[in-house]
């Protein structure tokens, strides 16, 4: 009886927790009039007009492509730079490995807002304001510590003997990484990449400050709905659902690895 009550309570809390998103999803299929109706409408004639309007009037595709290009581009580069570093530290730790790892972690603690001015000016002088390149560079640099750490913890779970054996058999370092290590740690690399994509996709400090229109990703597109003169709730809901849907799937896939990635191995 008590157990059943606890189960019920857990489910009620879980449902309340996602209710804002469910309500948003419902609103995305309402007309604007139904969306602001009081009392709120649970039953209504669903319509797709908001989705049509977003694609027809607001260049949703352009923003979405920016999000995809920036997230995938930054993640790919980050992983490519992080794998060799994590490999070296996981399998060939030296007396300074510990210091390097902790120092990398500490660079993640630098608050973005503390360096807003120099980054903005550097981008302006390099002609990179409102370009995808600027966001990709910033995201690679700010996510690199997370990637190195996460890959490091995955690599360390791989038996070292396998690496040694491949080296003794005459494989080069590159061959060892590519042919021996990668197949073993592919799930770990995939989780790392998923977390990086999520972080890039949802990042909303640099994307709001370094882009205007050309390179603006979905975070900035949604922010454009904050203008007081243009409050279209149903359209905002439809745009929001489109913007979060792909990343929710990634998030659900990677949630078990999330703790490892975001606590730097401090909680297991």
């Amino acid at each position, binding site marked *: 009886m008590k157990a059943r009550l*606890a189960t019920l309570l*857990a*489910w009620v*809390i*879980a449902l309340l927790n*996602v209710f804002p*998103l469910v309500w948003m999803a419902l609103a995305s299929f309402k007309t604007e009039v139904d*969306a602001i109706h*009081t*009392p709120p409408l649970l039953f209504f004639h669903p319509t797709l007009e908001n989705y049509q309007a977003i694609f027809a009037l607001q260049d949703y595709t352009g923003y979405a492509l920016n999000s995809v290009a920036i997230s995938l581009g930054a993640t790919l580069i980050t992983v490519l*730079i*992080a794998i*060799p*570093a994590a490999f070296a530290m996981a399998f*060939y*730790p*030296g007396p*300074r*490995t*510990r210091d390097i*790892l902790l120092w*990398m972690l*500490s*660079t993640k*603690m*630098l*608050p*973005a*807002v*503390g*360096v*807003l*001015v*120099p980054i*903005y000016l550097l981008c302006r002088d390099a002609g990179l304001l409102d370009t995808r390149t600027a966001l990709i560079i910033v995201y690679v*640099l*700010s996510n*690199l*510590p997370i990637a190195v750490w996460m890959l490091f913890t995955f690599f360390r779970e791989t038996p070292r003997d396998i690496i040694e054996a491949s*080296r003794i058999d005459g494989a080069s370092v590159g061959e060892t990484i590519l042919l021996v290590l990668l197949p073993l740690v592919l799930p770990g690399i995939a989780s790392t990449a998923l977390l990086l994509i999520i972080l890039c*996709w*949802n990042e909303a*400090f640099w994307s709001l*400050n370094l882009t205007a229109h050309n390179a603006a990703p*979905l975070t900035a597109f*949604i*922010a454009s*709905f*904050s203008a007081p003169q243009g409050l279209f709730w149903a359209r*905002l809901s439809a745009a*929001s659902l489109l*913007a*979060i849907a792909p990343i929710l799937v990634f998030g*659900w896939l990677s*949630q078990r690895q*999330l703790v490892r990635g*975001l*606590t730097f*191995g401090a*909680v297991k």
Partner: protein
Amino acid sequence: MARASSRAGIATAPLLAPAVLLLLLWMIVPLAMTLWFSFQRYNLLNPAVRGFAGFNNYRFLLRDPTLVPILVTTVVLVLAVLALTIGLGTVFAALFAREFRGRNIARLLMVTPFFVMPTVSALVWKNLFMHPVNGFFAAISRGLGLPVIDWFGAIPLLSVILIVAWEWLPFAFLIFLTALQSLDEEQIEAARLDGAGPIAIFFFIQLPHLGRAISVVVMMETIFLLGIFAEIYVTTAGGPGIATTNLPFLIYQRALLAFNVGGASAAGVIAIVLANVMAALLVRTIARRLDV
């Protein structure tokens, strides 16, 4: 590094170099520029007037009567969200620590808000829920015969706090749940046989076990919460007045709305110092766990 690699049998330096050099640049260049600008008289609207300003930027900043309320807002935002996410997070994690029907799906629902981009969370809450006329909460209040709350008009900071807490609760919850699952099941079983109820088990067994996880959540969240920006940008723009202006938003206003490079940089230095205090604590906690 060279000595380490010769001992290990391979040259690790070329493997490490790209990551290390990039991060070194990322750390030093912007930091040095922020420090340099904070001692410069430099406004982008009037770029001809430049020169060494001494401590003037800091003096103006410290004399600004809005600085203290803004710092207070920054800290209140962090502390309130920490209290909400850790308070609710520990209780919810304890509730989810035992097996029950559909637990995996329920846990997925609990974690979901963490994957929603901040601009979506903030605008959905602000409009669909907290709008004083058409919002969901207003409808509930009217239905119950209670006065309607004008969320962003009457209690703007609390409104922002609630939104941010909803975004960060999944993070705390998931970490606490992970930590609780490493708790020895027999310990709880023994306590139960001794007649301990769920509340006693929570306070005397589960909560003490969470000590380390709580400290990690406090430090990680503090670092992120000190930088809260997008939620304020799309809901209140720092207002009404300066009621929801925190340090990041102040710097944004100085830098990209007023184009005051020197003043914004001085505020940036303060933000860096604040964050570094927390960062030093966090790095020490993680270092204790790291065995290389």
